[in-house]
């Protein structure tokens, strides 16, 4: 019976060869008709695995945030319900159909968000000082990012499964390595934020702090500090966010204030920031260029560019290369060691591009968590 059946499919020889031929043919038939579906199930399995990991990270982030609030803030009530509400907060960006004046609208919304978040943290953890409020806010922001990533990946996973759409699942599977990398970066950042440790993004503030340490420091709006120091025969106004709490300040407003204070008589602005490295480049490598080296939603970059264009001030940038994981997790030794190399680069720029007696502004851009001045 089996031999007759196998002969029908063109298989000849002994029983074993015929069975193998049938298996071979069946294999082809199954893959022709169900190949895509098998691929989809493989994609579903891969996404499922990542979702388990994302859920674990999200839950751990929530636990870490709650524990940090309990340890630092000493609240009377359980902060968990407030934390859960915080994790679902959202910000609606302004309407861009008529883009004129959108920067001011975005700036206003970001200010409202910032104030609201800080007030929420203060309510959750009443026994905290300013720096601790900043650190807890950063911790909650990282937990919020993980919660958001988990929910978005889950959304597309369920949508793909519901519709059995190979392409939805395939797109999700394709971007998953990048998404997971970002999620892992946030998961690593949590501990740094909760303990107030410097992060990779603090490369700019670290350099600024090294330059201004031991000099008189004054506060500049908003949440920034500045010190006037002698630098290679020039006068440098060094600027950074006010530390050691987790804070990026508003360097756009601060640079504008400093330029206006000096009536535009600034020979150049030099910005130092952490810059995203390309794969293959070493962590902590220093590079220089031209332009406003600052990330974020773009408001500060806009303000700085407006001001330097108004007074025709040249602007230079020095960056410390690192990837997204390094930028939001505890500062690596290579990045901490690069601070001296950055200072040397800044010296070169100042000596080559300005004259003795000139006044310059040096801005250390980034999150100053764990770095005072």
């Amino acid at each position, binding site marked *: 019976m089996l031999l007759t059946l196998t002969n029908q499919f063109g298989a000849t020889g*002994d029983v*074993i*060869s015929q069975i193998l031929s049938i298996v071979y043919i069946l294999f082809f038939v199954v893959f022709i008709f169900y190949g895509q579906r098998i691929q989809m*199930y493989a994609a579903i*399995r891969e996404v*499922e*695995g990542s979702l*388990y*990991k994302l859920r*674990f*990270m999200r839950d*751990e*982030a929530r636990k*870490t945030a709650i524990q940090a609030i309990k340890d630092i803030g000493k609240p009377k009530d359980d902060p968990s319900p407030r934390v859960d509400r915080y994790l679902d907060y959202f910000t609606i960006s302004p309407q861009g159909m008529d883009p004129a004046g959108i920067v001011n609208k975005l700036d206003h919304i970001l200010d409202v968000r910032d104030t609201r978040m800080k007030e929420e943290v203060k309510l959750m953890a009443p026994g905290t000082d300013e720096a601790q409020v900043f650190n807890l806010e950063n911790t909650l922001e990282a937990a919020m990012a993980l919660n958001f990533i988990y929910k978005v990946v889950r959304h597309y996973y369920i949508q793909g499964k519901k519709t059995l759409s190979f392409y939805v699942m395939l797109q999700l599977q394709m971007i998953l390595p990048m998404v997971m990398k970002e999620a*892992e970066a946030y*998961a*690593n950042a*949590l*501990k740094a934020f909760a*303990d*107030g*440790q*410097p992060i990779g993004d603090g490369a700019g503030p*670290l350099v600024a*702090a090294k330059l201004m*340490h031991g000099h008189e420091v004054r506060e500049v709006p908003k949440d920034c500090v500045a010190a006037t120091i002698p630098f290679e025969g020039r006068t440098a106004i060094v600027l950074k966010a006010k*530390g*050691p709490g987790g804070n990026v300040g508003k360097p756009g407003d601060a640079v504008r204030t400093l330029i206006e204070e000096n009536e535009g008589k600034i020979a150049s602005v030099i910005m130092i920031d952490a810059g995203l490295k390309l794969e*293959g480049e070493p962590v902590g490598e220093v590079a220089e260029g031209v332009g406003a080296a600052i990330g974020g939603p773009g408001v500060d970059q806009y303000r700085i560019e407006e001001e330097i264009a108004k007074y025709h001030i040249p602007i230079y940038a020095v960056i410390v290369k690192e990837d997204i994981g390094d930028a939001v*997790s*505890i*500062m*690596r*030794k290579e*990045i*901490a060691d690069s601070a001296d190399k950055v200072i040397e680069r800044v010296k070169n720029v100042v000596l080559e591009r300005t004259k003795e007696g000139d006044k310059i502004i040096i801005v250390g851009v980034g999150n100053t968590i*764990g*770095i*005072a*001045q």
Partner: protein
Amino acid sequence: MNTESNASATTNRISTFVVMIVVAVMVLSLVAFGLAAWAYMADNMTSAIFLTITGVIALTLSAYVLLQTRRTAVATKTAPAKVMTTVECKKCGTKNVRDFQRGDYVYKELEACQKCPEDKMIITAIYKEIKEKEKTYNF
């Protein structure tokens, strides 16, 4: 986050789907070995060699897949990095490196220096050291 100690079972488990396929392939490879022995005893050398090769390839591949999956599961556990604090006296240059303590921050003033008691030690750096080498490529 201490993922090493708190990793849940769901995070580290190996997909049952993959395990099922691997087990099925392993069973089939064992069947191939059995058939190879049977063919050898029946003086059918060609089939015996063919089935033995098939069995060896299937067994090797399934073992490799199982090992790779286990390696991925292990890779999800990441050990927390050791964070170090560098403490310096700016006057005499005394430098100590110790473990990070909560409340440390760069340029925090600490206790007086043992060599020059009129000056305070300050924290000059806080960083993590990554022991494992990054994978290098030829380009």
